[in-house]
């Protein structure tokens, strides 16, 4: 009985058979700048990459199998841990799909939709902060890492205030939220909004017109609009190639059509274009947050009152018998979702994050298939890495911004 998988010799290392004179190098699972456990088997001739074959699966967690064995509302625990840079976007997309299957997607209260929009824009900024920080470190810009992570810290305080945990707050539920925003939340939010503008000015001043970064990023990993679409690109990479496809504009969900924001695009399609698109996206996200902030002052219902899905308020459980029965039934055997299948897409920080959820009428999902934007974004490395210097491989991986919890699921 082997307690661990067999030795590494069996891995797909001999995939790239080395033609004469070329060295096969494994930019392996443990590498300072692969942003996670990615193994790129590169065949190099001197400094030029002649063949790059990314190998993934080193963080395969079987999340979709686990989700099939959990109740509908429990499954969001494992699903949130897929894209751990913006967990709320995953949970939001999954719950929107379930609400569509239940047919209650029109009855989500206003305030719940506003808070969902607020939190997914905040997690977009937090995720781009991590991309900016680690991308800067790859190119030697350490100060950017400290500035960006400090801004992210303030945003994580908001998540901690909302759901209780910094990264995986588990704050969403079918039909709304787990609880209302705590008392001091809106003041903290005002603090973040006030702090954002000067901090972004510092970050742009540090990195945007930095000649070293410009030399390292311009004309590296070029991807035209045609190839971007064929390789399944969505999100900042597609918009850096010139196509302004944003799921929040194309298929508005959770009340996004009420806010105006525009979709930044570039046309060069190289690493620097993606850099600029993501920076502008952070500003657009903050623009939405300011609009949502105005709406949050009016209190309202944060959870559907239909107790078939939402547990009754805690205080009523001790008082009324059927509230206790509802609560017990929901907790012990969850609710059932009518049979059917649905595909729901959401604009994640890395692109179109989709959930193809199939239910056979049971109280557990039959199948939860995730459309992982990071996997398709990463796959294009095979194409754009050919003929580039091996030092630029680091810049390309950073500009594709893969998150390996989502790539390997």
């Amino acid at each position, binding site marked *: 009985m*082997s307690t661990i998988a067999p030795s590494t010799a*069996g891995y797909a290392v001999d995939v790239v058979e080395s033609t004469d004179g070329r060295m096969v190098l494994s930019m392996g699972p443990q590498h300072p700048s692969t942003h996670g456990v990615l193994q790129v088997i590169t065949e190099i001739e001197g400094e030029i990459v002649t063949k790059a074959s990314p190998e993934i*699966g080193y963080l395969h967690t079987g999340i979709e199998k686990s989700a099939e*064995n959990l109740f509908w509302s429990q499954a969001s625990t494992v699903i949130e841990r897929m894209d751990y840079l913006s967990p709320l976007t995953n949970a939001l997309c999954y719950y929107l799909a379930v609400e569509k299957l239940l047919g209650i997607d029109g009855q989500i209260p206003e305030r719940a939709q506003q808070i969902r929009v607020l939190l997914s824009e905040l997690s977009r900024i937090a995720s781009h902060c991590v991309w900016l920080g680690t991308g800067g470190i790859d190119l030697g810009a350490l100060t950017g890492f400290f500035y960006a992570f400090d801004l992210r810290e303030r945003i994580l305080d908001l998540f901690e205030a909302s759901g209780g945990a910094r990264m995986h707050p588990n704050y969403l539920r079918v039909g709304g939220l787990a609880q209302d925003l705590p008392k001091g939340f809106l003041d903290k939010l005002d603090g973040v909004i006030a702090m954002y503008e000067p901090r972004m000015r510092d970050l742009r001043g540090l990195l945007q017109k930095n000649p070293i970064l410009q030399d390292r990023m311009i004309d590296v990993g070029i991807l035209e609009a045609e190839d971007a679409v*064929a*390789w*399944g690109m969505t999100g900042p990479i597609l918009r850096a190639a010139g196509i302004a496809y944003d799921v929040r504009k*194309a298929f508005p969900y959770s009340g996004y059509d009420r806010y105006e924001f525009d979709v930044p695009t570039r046309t060069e399609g190289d690493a620097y274009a993606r850099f600029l698109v993501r920076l502008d996206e952070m500003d657009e996200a903050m623009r939405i947050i300011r609009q949502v902030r105005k709406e949050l002052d009016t209190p309202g219902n944060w959870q559907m009152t239909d107790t078939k899905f939402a547990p009754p308020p805690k205080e009523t459980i001790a008082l009324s018998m059927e509230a206790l029965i509802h609560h017990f039934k929901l907790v012990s055997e969850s609710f059932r979702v009518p049979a*059917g299948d649905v595909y729901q897409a959401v604009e994640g920080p890395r692109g179109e994050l989709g959930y193809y959820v199939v239910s056979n009428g049971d109280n557990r999902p039959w199948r939860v298939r995730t*459309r992982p934007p990071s996997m398709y974004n990463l796959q294009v490395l095979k194409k754009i890495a050919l003929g580039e210097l091996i030092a630029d491989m680091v810049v390309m991986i950073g500009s594709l911004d893969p998150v390996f919890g989502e790539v390997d699921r």
Partner: protein
Amino acid sequence: MPSSQTPPPGSTAVDPTAVRPTIADARILRVTPDALIATLRELKAQGFSQLTDIGGVDYLEREPRFDVVYHLLALPTRESSIGDVGAPARVRVLCGVDVDQEVPTAVALWPAADWAEREVFDLFGIRFQDHPDMRRIQMPDDWEGYPLRKDYPLRGPASERTPRPSFALKSNVAAGTPASGRAAAALQKQLLEARSREVKTAAEAGRTAQTGVHPGASVTAGDASAKELAERPVNLNTKDNA
């Protein structure tokens, strides 16, 4: 694990895709594997320029058993503003596949299909004809079985289950973390004696003697292979360690 009430008979649909809730998220097409490539090529000609995802679903009792789901999106392929993009049309092509039936690959139409098809093969066992690199993508290369099939146990085959070491071994105190000054030192001395007794017995059993081994951490794995490490029941409350 959630309670194991089995759903009342008849309340679960064998083929959920046949039951069409009123959700207008995409146009649905159902094809068979031999008509698949023709349909995809025709859809691509109609303007569905992006294959956003290929997913597999295992409907256990349904005939055909598997579904390979192609999600297509009609995106413009050159620079376009938000207005040009508008609300692109979506199509979902469901391709019913039997257990040992092969599906033609779509890599020729969209290069994005490469990894997606490898993943469907890796997790469902559905092979794709003349795919450039038909290998496992998520699981180790020599893994038996296809994990996302409904008859594949959640925790994997019994042979792969790693034994859970006793909690005593894993507690921080056993790992030498000092509770507090004097108590910690006393505890450490007791653990050291327990450890050295156990090491002595191990030494008599012909194993190499290890002096000064850190309490709690079992022998450094350098010389003991991982398999032996996992099976050695290092348990503080065994009889002779009392």
